């Protein structure tokens, strides 16, 4: 069972992707819905909104404990931001479990959003990646492996049981990134 943090964002697209891989999912809006999960997805959305609701409903600390305690977790876009240790600019609630510095809206406004074929470390064919008002990663800690970069900026990383991407595989039909994550949930 993989949980999807469902406070706001493209929850449904992650559900469809995971269900397509034969994995059952559960929407997580309250603390007790974190119990018994094999993995967690933090979807795309507005990180300020998700962070505010997670704080208000007492989810930040339980999420931090669960992820730091080894719960395999995958964050896309807003999910990457929430997982991050620090922001390059601005302050907002962060989980601080992924040793990276993230820059929000790094590529610009919506007119600068794009899709492109992206080489990902460990994948033979490029991945068609969709970036929407996407963040990028300014710097990573020693324990973080950069799986993909765009124009010199890391945009997909892994730190042990935590996976994060600035782009949205859930907006495509390509299951490879989610498959990688599902494999990670079975390694533990």
């Amino acid at each position, binding site marked *: 069972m993989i949980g999807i943090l469902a406070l706001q964002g493209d*929850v449904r697209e992650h559900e469809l992707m995971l269900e397509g891989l034969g994995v059952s999912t559960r929407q997580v809006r309250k603390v007790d819905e974190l119990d018994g999960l094999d993995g967690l997805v933090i979807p795309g959305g507005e990180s*300020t909104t998700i962070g505010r*609701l997670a704080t208000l409903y007492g989810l930040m600390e339980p999420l931090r404990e669960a992820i730091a305690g080894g719960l395999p977790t995958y964050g896309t876009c807003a999910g990457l931001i929430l997982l991050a240790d620090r922001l390059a600019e601005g302050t907002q609630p962060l989980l601080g479990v992924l040793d990276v510095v993230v820059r929000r809206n790094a590529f610009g406004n919506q007119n600068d959003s794009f*899709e492109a074929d992206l080489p990902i470390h460990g994948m033979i064919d490029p991945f068609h990646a969709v970036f929407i008002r996407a963040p990028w990663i300014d710097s990573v800690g020693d324990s973080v492996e950069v799986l993909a970069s765009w124009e010199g900026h890391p945009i997909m990383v892994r730190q042990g049981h935590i996976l994060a991407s600035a782009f949205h595989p859930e907006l495509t039909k390509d299951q490879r990134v989610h498959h990688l994550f599902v494999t990670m949930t079975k390694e533990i």
Partner: protein
Amino acid sequence: MEQATDRVKRGLAEMLKGGVIMDVVNAEQAKVAEDAGAVAVMALERVPADIRKDGGVARMSDPEMIDAIIEAVSIPVMAKARIGHFVEAQVLQAIGVDYVDESEVLTPADEENHIDKWQFTTPFVCGARNLGEALRRIGEGAAMIRTKGEAGTGNVVEAVRHMRQITADIRALSTMGSEELMRAARDLQAPFDLVQEVANSGKLPVVNFAAGGLATPADAAMMMQLGCDGVFVGSGIFKSGDPSARAKAIVEATTYYQDPLIIAKVSRNLGEPMVGIEIDTLQDSERFDKRGW
């Protein structure tokens, strides 16, 4: 690398799902909205309730004001252009808004034609009262739909009517045989390929938000239970007694829309809601939802 594709335009709306988009008229209100948990703000010169009250021609906002709002917040900024006013839309695209709302709340600039939205990099959201209208807008390039409702009234009845109509229209299509779809396209006055797509998928090809008359947390939660992907709140927030508290409450009610106890909790002590208008007391000429076709 490709930009301004359907996927990129529709994708931003996907990211806004489950969220609240709030009307704001200056940078200060935009900040209040962001701090309350809005997923985006809609920049406009006057909220619909004031447009109703003041009358006159309602137009695109001053770009200076929109710039100040873009500067003030980190969330997406939308802005309204008049129906058919493609130059207002060009200006909004040039100053870098994230979404253009071709809106019936402003005074229409063209009574026959909406904007050819395919010509733009910036995605568009448009209002609709039924499936045919939604598919005409999508056929013109809209990347997101919202119900028209009846903006500036604080009365949710029209938003409910439009949402139920769209849902019923989709349900009807999805039970039809393929040979019935051309006639359905004729009756809906909608592009055939989009009618086929909806009949096959059982849903709109773009995200659909509720808008027009939402004023309370319960209004937002009801629209979510009726199947909307998220909500716009216009006059309902900044025309109420305590905008910040009401904005926060509506955000929470939109996320926890299936939880009446949470809706009850956030509905307590919100102060005065905006004063509502009974739709029947409006003349047809005063009804924004009759604008556009």
